[in-house]
């Protein structure tokens, strides 16, 4: 059992593009669920639209990297409108059902062979890196120390991702401390009361869905930025993982989703390295290495349940401000 290698992998995962992508999507869910009270269970679709929008516009239409990102973000705005206009009048639990269904529709549209030419159906998309890497200001070479040693492209993706994440966190913080954020939190508490005070609740909910959706789309793009777009990623369980990260950190906080994602990925990577290693040295005689990979997802489920029951406000949240029992 190579403890050092396990720890190194774990350390590296803390700033991996996947972690940054999760953090962005979790910020989007903090906007939707933590602050506005919209139980959006379709975050995976926003991420998929971001990633596919980016990849397709580069591969099929020859856009530059920033054009691809604009298409991904624009696509998520359109999706938020299409999803929001008919459903935001629904009560919370119905919204959850509709968003799950909508996310599945989006995933299956990307997966179907009908659009194979554009989406690559089950193979997904790859080979769209040239334009983004051409903009890399970092000279070739390997930088960093310990677990955080990457080449120029690796750092470029991470620095870009962290910059976008910082920007998103700043935007969320800026709007949530404003009178706009007060209306949003009021809607979470009781939308009829807010309506009675002359606020257009529907419009605010739509704005929240769009802003959070843009964060989700950027998360999807960053997630796909270093490697490929894989349709197997954007499944409903992705939404649940992002929720786990969100609830771990604190749903109605700004830094909670970020810290939650970092911890989520740290623990995931640790377990996915540690459990098979323990099986190999005979510490877990009752399972195989394949089974041990499944066990970590069981542990995620158990952790999510324990969180919701015993610490619903998350690590950073205020116990009084967010609980599931009112």
């Amino acid at each position: 059992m190579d403890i050092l290698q396990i720890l190194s992998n774990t350390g590296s995962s803390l700033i991996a593009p996947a972690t940054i992508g999760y953090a962005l999507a979790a910020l989007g869910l903090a906007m939707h669920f933590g602050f506005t009270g919209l139980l959006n269970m379709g975050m995976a679709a926003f991420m998929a639209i971001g990633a596919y929008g980016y990849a397709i516009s580069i591969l099929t239409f020859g856009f530059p990297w920033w054009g691809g990102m604009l298409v991904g973000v624009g696509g998520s705005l359109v999706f938020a409108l299409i999803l929001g206009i008919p459903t935001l009048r629904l009560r919370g639990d119905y919204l959850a059902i509709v968003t799950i269904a909508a996310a599945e529709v989006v995933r299956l549209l990307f997966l179907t062979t009908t659009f194979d030419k554009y989406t690559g159906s089950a193979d997904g998309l790859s080979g769209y890196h040239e334009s983004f890497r051409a903009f890399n200001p970092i000279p070739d070479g390997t930088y960093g120390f310990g677990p955080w040693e990457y080449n120029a492209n690796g750092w470029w993706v991470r620095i870009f991702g962290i910059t976008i994440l910082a920007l998103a966190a700043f935007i969320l913080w800026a709007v949530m401390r404003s009178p706009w954020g007060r209306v949003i939190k009021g809607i979470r508490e009781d939308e009829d009361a807010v309506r009675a005070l002359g606020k257009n609740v529907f419009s605010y909910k739509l704005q929240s869905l769009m802003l959070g959706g843009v964060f989700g789309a950027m998360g999807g793009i960053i997630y796909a930025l270093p490697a490929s777009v894989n349709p197997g990623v954007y499944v409903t369980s992705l939404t649940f993982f992002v929720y786990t990260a969100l609830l771990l950190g604190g749903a109605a906080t700004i830094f909670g989703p970020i810290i939650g994602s970092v911890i989520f990925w740290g623990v995931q990577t640790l377990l996915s390295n540690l459990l098979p290693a323990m099986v190999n040295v005979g510490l877990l005689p009752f399972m195989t290495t394949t089974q041990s990979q499944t066990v970590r997802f069981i542990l995620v489920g158990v952790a999510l349940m324990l969180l919701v029951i015993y610490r619903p406000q998350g690590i950073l949240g205020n116990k009084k401000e967010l609980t599931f029992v009112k």
Partner: protein
Amino acid sequence: MSSNDASAAPVQRAKTTGLHKGDIVPGVAKVDPIIIADGIRRTFGGLTAVNVDHVEIPRNAITALIGPNGAGKTTLFNLLTGFDKPDEGKWTFDGHSLAGMGAHKVAGLGQVRTFQLTKALGLLTVLENMKLGAKDQIGENIFRAMIPSLWRKQEAEIEERAIVLLKKFKLDTKSSDFAASLSGGQRKLLEMARALMSQPTLVMLDEPMAGVNPALTQSLLDHILDLKEEGMTVLFVEHDMHMVRHIADWVIVMAEGQVVAEGPPDEVMKNQAVIDAYLGSHQDVDLGIVTGRIEGELNTEAIELAAEVKHLDENIANRKETGK
């Protein structure tokens, strides 16, 4: 009405009179109406919840909407405030036609309401609750929200106004607490204070006294009377007849979705239709005495009314009719 009322408290304020034109009948025209409603019908399946031919609400007066449970009072409230849409009918507020208008637009015109089940925004602080009530906030636009210099000045003004109102409603010591930590009565006060933050012209209160203890009742009554003095119009739904008698200038009685009677409180309560439709057997205690506002025993009027009601109750029992 109550200049000759022996039980009038020293602080009893004058009622507004002369609100109507011509004979008092259901749907009578008012001298200066703020709301004029025509032919409003709302059905839920086979049940006609509201069926009002014509009703006018007088401006700068306190109007009470009374009636038994299921009479359609709250439904009418919801219709007038845009929270529900009628099957047919039209109505105007301050000259603006409101038919088909959404609740937030109605509120934007200066018609603000409270709810029967108090809606304090529990996980916002009391002060945030208050600030939310203010209208036309620059920082409520998502783009301007990101630039604090645009809204900071207005925010300070709103906060100042909120603190003045909180002091008046004796909630200033609670301003940084979550509204969820307030008692039921305090939440009623907060909801009313929050509604006033929007500087409305018409305040619609749905059962402002429900669940409020007698000690708070008095201050709530005074607050409602203050609204009229400040030039606002008040329309409220209430089951507490004493409150209605004490503060209402005009009473509209509904039963089975229709306006069955209206008029100044004393006259309405003598109306046979009203007594049949509504008045129960708890008319024997004066609210003023209950709340400690007035010392002394019940006045003759109250005793007479109690006797009358008792007599009617017996009649009703004899006829095996139930008035709910």
